[in-house]
């Protein structure tokens, strides 16, 4: 990685040699309101300007991968919920599709459609949280409550379909845990009708606010090559202008049947790859997800959605790397089976972890306040970073 690939530092202070100055080491976190959980960043600061930032992780480590080796294939699914607890459905999906591909299993049409609907609804819910907390990071309180009002409706839909509001354990091998109750499809369509105009409300109060643009445009710029070299994915990568979305580029489930666009950052307010672009990609993706949900709900076929295999499955020996597009990016499950009742190994390639790794590269030369904006724009979930 060449140094000159990185964007120029935003602020530089020239200090005369005669003046004695000292760098201050500052622990941002693990108890800090804007590190989105228990992230700790060791900052070296010169006044308000950051010289270096080093993320320290592991405060939320729960041994997911070790747990996975000791429970049956199906029992891993609830653990995947707890990786990225803001988008549990998407986590279920990746693991389950991986197993199904190893077992060469066909899933009922209705189940496939339900999976897509809940995954995309969950993507909207996750992006809503990203938006709201990003507003909080920048200092705007009200958008946070707005997005929670609308996320609540998604959670109500989830509660109706699977009984849970946060950790769903809904997508099972061979199908889904429960079929959608009567009238659920219409409620989904109603929600989409309600929700799409609401995005304008967020744009009015936050996205196009002058102060918000001042705070986020041209801040924390990640050029496309840096983003690729650090293995960024999801909105953080697309914010840098790279058109890469696994739903299009490596389609899984039935995503190839739907019409939607891949949104990328275009540098409308400043430079391509700044925090505003990453934020904007999320806003734009909500429109696209709403489009997918509407198509899927309208086409939702009748039939059986329950799983087609017994609860205690055996997966043929072998290994498989399954990657899906979660709201945070490329979530990869590297699954090794020895043909037994439990996984031999499940390794997770966590998008939030890889996205966070770019932080030390873009932090030098920004202000403490920008640091908060950058962490927020990467939209990390510590449950997934630490696993």
């Amino acid at each position, binding site marked *: 990685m060449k140094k000159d690939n990185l964007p120029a530092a935003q602020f530089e202070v020239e200090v005369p040699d005669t003046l004695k100055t000292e760098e*201050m080491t500052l622990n941002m976190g693990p108890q800090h309101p804007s590190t989105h959980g228990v992230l700790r960043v060791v900052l070296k600061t010169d006044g*308000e300007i950051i010289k270096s930032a080093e993320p320290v992780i592991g405060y939320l480590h729960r041994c997911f991968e070790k747990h996975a080796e000791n429970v049956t294939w199906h029992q891993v699914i609830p653990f995947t919920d707890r990786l990225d607890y803001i988008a549990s459905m998407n986590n279920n999906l990746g693991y389950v599709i991986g197993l199904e591909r190893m077992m060469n299993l066909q899933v009922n049409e209705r189940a496939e459609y339900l999976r897509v609907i809940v995954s995309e609804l969950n993507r909207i819910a996750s992006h809503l949280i990203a938006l709201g907390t990003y507003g909080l990071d920048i200092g*705007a309180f*009200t958008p946070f*409550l707005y997005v929670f009002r609308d996320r609540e409706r998604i959670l109500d839909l989830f509660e109706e379909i699977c009984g849970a509001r946060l950790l769903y354990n809904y997508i099972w091998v061979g199908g889904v845990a429960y079929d959608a109750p009567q009238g659920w499809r219409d409620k989904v369509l109603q929600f989409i009708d309600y929700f799409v105009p609401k995005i304008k409300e967020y744009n009015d109060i936050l996205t196009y606010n002058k102060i918000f643009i001042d705070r986020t445009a041209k801040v924390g710029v990640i050029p496309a090559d840096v983003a690729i070299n650090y293995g960024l994915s999801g909105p953080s990568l697309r914010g840098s202008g790279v058109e890469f979305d696994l739903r299009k580029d490596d389609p899984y489930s039935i995503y190839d049947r739907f019409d939607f666009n891949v949104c990328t950052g275009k540098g409308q307010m400043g430079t391509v790859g700044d925090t505003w672009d990453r934020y904007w990609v999320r806003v734009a993706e909500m429109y696209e997800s709403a489009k997918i949900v509407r198509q899927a709900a309208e086409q939702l076929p009748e039939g059986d959605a329950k799983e087609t295999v017994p609860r205690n499955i055996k997966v043929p020996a072998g290994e498989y790397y399954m990657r899906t597009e979660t709201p945070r990016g490329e979530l990869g499950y590297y699954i090794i089976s020895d043909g037994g009742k439990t996984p031999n190994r499940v390794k997770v390639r966590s998008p939030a972890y890889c996205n966070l790794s770019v932080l030390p590269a873009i932090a030098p030369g920004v202000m403490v*306040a920008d640091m908060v904006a950058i962490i927020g724009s990467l939209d990390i979930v510590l449950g997934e970073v630490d696993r």
Partner: protein
Amino acid sequence: MEPILQFFYNLVPGLADLPLWIAATIVGAIVVVAMFTYIALFALIGIWLERKISGHMQDRLGPMEVGGWHGWAQTIADTVKLLLKEDIVPDKADKPLFRFAPILVFAAALSAFAAIPWSRSFIPANLNVGLLYILSISSLVVIGILMGGWASNNKWSLYGGMRAVAQIVSYEIPVSLSLIVAVLIAGTLDMQQIVLNQSGSILSWNVFRFFPFPFIAFFIYFIASLAEVNRTPFDLPEAESELVAGFQTEYSGMRWSFFMLAEYADMFVVAAIATTVFLGGWQAPFEFLTFIPAAFWFLGKALLIVFVQMWLRWTLPRLRVDQLMYTAWKVLTPFSFALIVFVSLWKIL
């Protein structure tokens, strides 16, 4: 303070027989207690209002439980909780400074109330340099904040203190300059005279006279005063998402609530200054409305400005430090200088 002394002499004739300095001290003490009570009440109601306003702006109800009707007793309950809390002074803190900081901040806020004209006769201290007095005494707040930030021995607090100093010192300049525009019109620094100078209908208020210069000055003053009292979008010294809570991080219980009290008192003070200097003070907007007491008009106008302050807080994000400085030095200050020149020319020609 002659009108007030006279008022008390009429109320308690025995006071007039005492030597002046004793009578003045007694009356002064009563007025201070009254002001303190007013600030405490204002903070209680103001915090409750802020919660309700923010609640309704955010599509929720705000406090609804404590006390029955719309949670009216919520802040009282909170005050009791704060009073009962353990008084924590961090081990490594600079203890005398740590204890003194909230007192200084609050004292500065309270002293500013002395020169605010509530009506024709009620002005605790009718100074001929009232405006200058208020501006200078409220600058003391920044020393208290820096003190608290430094004494807490916490790096976040130190940042908060440093930011507060840089911010408040910079914004005092546009504040003073925009007020000078009004002073030029009135030709006096006496708060009561400035109000009397605007008597008549709403059109003789300073905002609408010499249009549009004092009108712009009013907005400059309003923006800069937000920075003076650390309200959004200039709440950098206590930016909770960046600096945890800035200079307040290590404070708890009563000490913290004194910072809070001072913040609300300051909010009212800057609103009161704006009312007095630009919005005709305690005068009614139209002649036929003068039967309504002056204090009502004064309070109404000031609370309207306080409401706008709250409104902005729940709408806008926060600026960054360099943008804050940019706004102060490159936007507000040159504009207020220009306004001074224009108004002076208008006066002379």
